[in-house]
């Protein structure tokens, strides 16, 4: 289990990403608020904890790859990339304008952007290609592909899901941001896709379901995904569109909307309140800390460093029996079980 200090710090980072997002949105400018803010925790966990990134070199050969298949949410990626120092925050004010470099969708001229995405349904295919190349080169790096739940209606995505299984790309983790709203309304009304979990399972993937705003669950799921061999893993993250912006949560209008001055101030107030809540929670868990520590000590296998070493030592293995790999109901169980 990841220590509470790290979790608290990641929660703060996620909040900072939302603050950066707000800065980019500004007042009266149209931007993809909803699907960006639903990803704040996941993006924070990836860039500031899970992924190998080099703050001094966005193109470091030994980096993990982040692909935002739902490219319209790129503002939250910019929020993270600027936080890593890949470009100055002064770019935020110039987003989507001729004066700046930050485009409306991911463009490879921007440091840290790994592919051109935004025409939906293509990111997973690109991820499969990267994963295959990394494997050919015997590199240990992983590829992370973030998709939207609305995006799941793109047929190409399922072509990629089949290919990922066929080629056993276990160095790829898919993440579906299930925020349940798409451009023109609720996903359940626009184009309902029932049994998302069953569908991925039927395509041969290892499936982990989480609350996409609970940092502990995100981190545990990402850890668990990294240990599965022989099949790709998808994390289905239950999220709230517009999360953190009290007036925008669960509202399709903020898929690509603009803020009034009042809403801008409200968001700032929301974030200040959220910061306080994080501090409070951290203080509470600090009191409980000894108990958590004891529990962790009892199960040395669940300790992160030990597991990480074991995973690193293992060369990429040909499939463990597929069925066993797929039968992984929850991230917690997986983390506790060491795979042989």
């Amino acid at each position, binding site marked *: 289990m990841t220590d509470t200090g790290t979790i608290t710090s990641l929660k703060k980072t996620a909040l900072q990403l939302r603050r950066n997002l707000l800065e980019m949105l500004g007042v009266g400018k149209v931007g993809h608020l909803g699907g960006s803010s639903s990803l704040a925790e996941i993006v924070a966990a990836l860039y500031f904890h899970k992924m190998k990134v080099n703050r001094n070199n966005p193109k470091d050969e030994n980096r993990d*790859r982040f692909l935002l298949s739902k490219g319209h949410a790129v503002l939250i990626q910019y929020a993270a990339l600027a936080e890593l120092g890949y470009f100055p925050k002064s770019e935020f004010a110039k987003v989507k304008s001729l004066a700046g470099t930050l485009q409306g969708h991911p*463009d*490879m001229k921007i440091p840290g952007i*790994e*592919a*051109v*995405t*935004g*025409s939906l*349904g*293509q990111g997973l*295919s*690109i*991820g*499969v*290609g*990267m*994963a*295959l*190349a*990394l494997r*050919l*080169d015997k590199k240990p790096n992983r590829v992370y592909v973030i998709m939207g739940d609305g995006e799941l209606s793109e*047929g*190409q995505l399922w*072509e*990629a899901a*089949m*290919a990922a299984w*066929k*080629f056993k790309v276990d160095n790829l983790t898919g993440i579906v941001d299930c925020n349940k709203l798409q451009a023109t309304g609720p996903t359940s009304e626009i184009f309902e896709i029932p049994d998302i979990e069953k569908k991925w399972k039927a395509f041969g993937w290892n499936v982990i379901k989480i609350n996409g705003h609970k940092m502990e669950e995100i981190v545990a799921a990402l850890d668990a995904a990294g240990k599965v061999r022989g099949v790709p893993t998808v994390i289905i993250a239950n999220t709230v569109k517009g999360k953190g912006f009290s007036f925008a949560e669960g509202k399709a209008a903020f898929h690509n909307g603009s803020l009034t001055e009042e809403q801008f101030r409200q968001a700032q107030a929301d974030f200040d309140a959220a910061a306080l809540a994080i501090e409070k929670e951290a203080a509470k868990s600090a009191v409980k800390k000894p108990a958590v520590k004891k529990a962790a000590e009892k199960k040395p296998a669940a300790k992160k460093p030990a597991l990480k070493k074991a995973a690193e030592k293992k060369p990429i293995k040909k499939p463990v029996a597929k069925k066993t790999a797929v039968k992984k109901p929850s991230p917690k169980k997986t983390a506790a079980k060491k795979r042989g």
Partner: protein
Amino acid sequence: MSINLNTKSLREAYGLALVELGKKDKNVVALEADLGNSTRSVLFRAEFPDRHFEMGIAEQNMASTSAGLALAGKIPFMSTFAVFASGRAFDQLRNSICIPKLKVRVCGSSAGLSDFGDGKTHQSVEDIAIMRALPNMTVLAPVDAVEVVKMMERINEIDGPVYIRINRNDLPTLTPEAGDWTPGKLWTVREGSDAVVFASGVMASKALEAAQVLSGEGISVRVINASTIKPMNASAVIQAASGVKGIVTAEESNISGGFGSAILEVLRAERHGPVEFVGIQDCFGVSAKNYDELLERYGLTAYAIAQAVRKVVKAAGGVAGA
């Protein structure tokens, strides 16, 4: 040439040349969408099974997967029929590959009408126009098997994505064994002074045939093979079109946005004589028993080229003594 070529088949030449590239560079990988026997990428699979990816009947995924491979340092050659490469996977070529200018090589096999039996769904009349419209894309249309090999030997020099249009049938060899192919190079198949025929792919040999017939009528025809359709070598085209009375373009594709359009785009600001396009007149294909029968049906013949030349020369005032 690195290969001792005993075939007039362009696709066989492509497969053999791909294997050679694979031997030279371990980063060369090949992707296929269940048409490897036709495109001849199976030759690469036999040699390098770990670097060959059978993607199934899923061209869109194949294109974006190629993008991912290229982004991680590989040089992917994705092969399928031209009609699927240009149509089915267009958005993927556009967004995943052409915008970031990735070094992906797209083999549009069985191009034009060359898949004569399969009919209109499998015959690509519009692939040149589609590929030409994509910024950053290089478009190549080899004239024979020898040129395929020469192109493949130099293809690595081309930055960004490349579309290579491969005919399904054996074609007569025009390309001389000696000499290198370079991107953008135009070469003169036959010298002449009254008219010029710019020809692409299968139409080059038809143009040569027409020139031979016309020489008996006292009309001297220059035949130019322009196998790099994009970027078109503007100065070479302008030079080749200078000093003649009329211009004819000949292509095995829709004249709307095709090879002839590419030539005329270059010549638009130049003084030039009358122009005729020989090509498919804005319609789809049809099934036929053999390739020649189909070319005849669509007016893609030496006779049609000769008629077009007669027409432009006449419009320009005729040839002295003819």
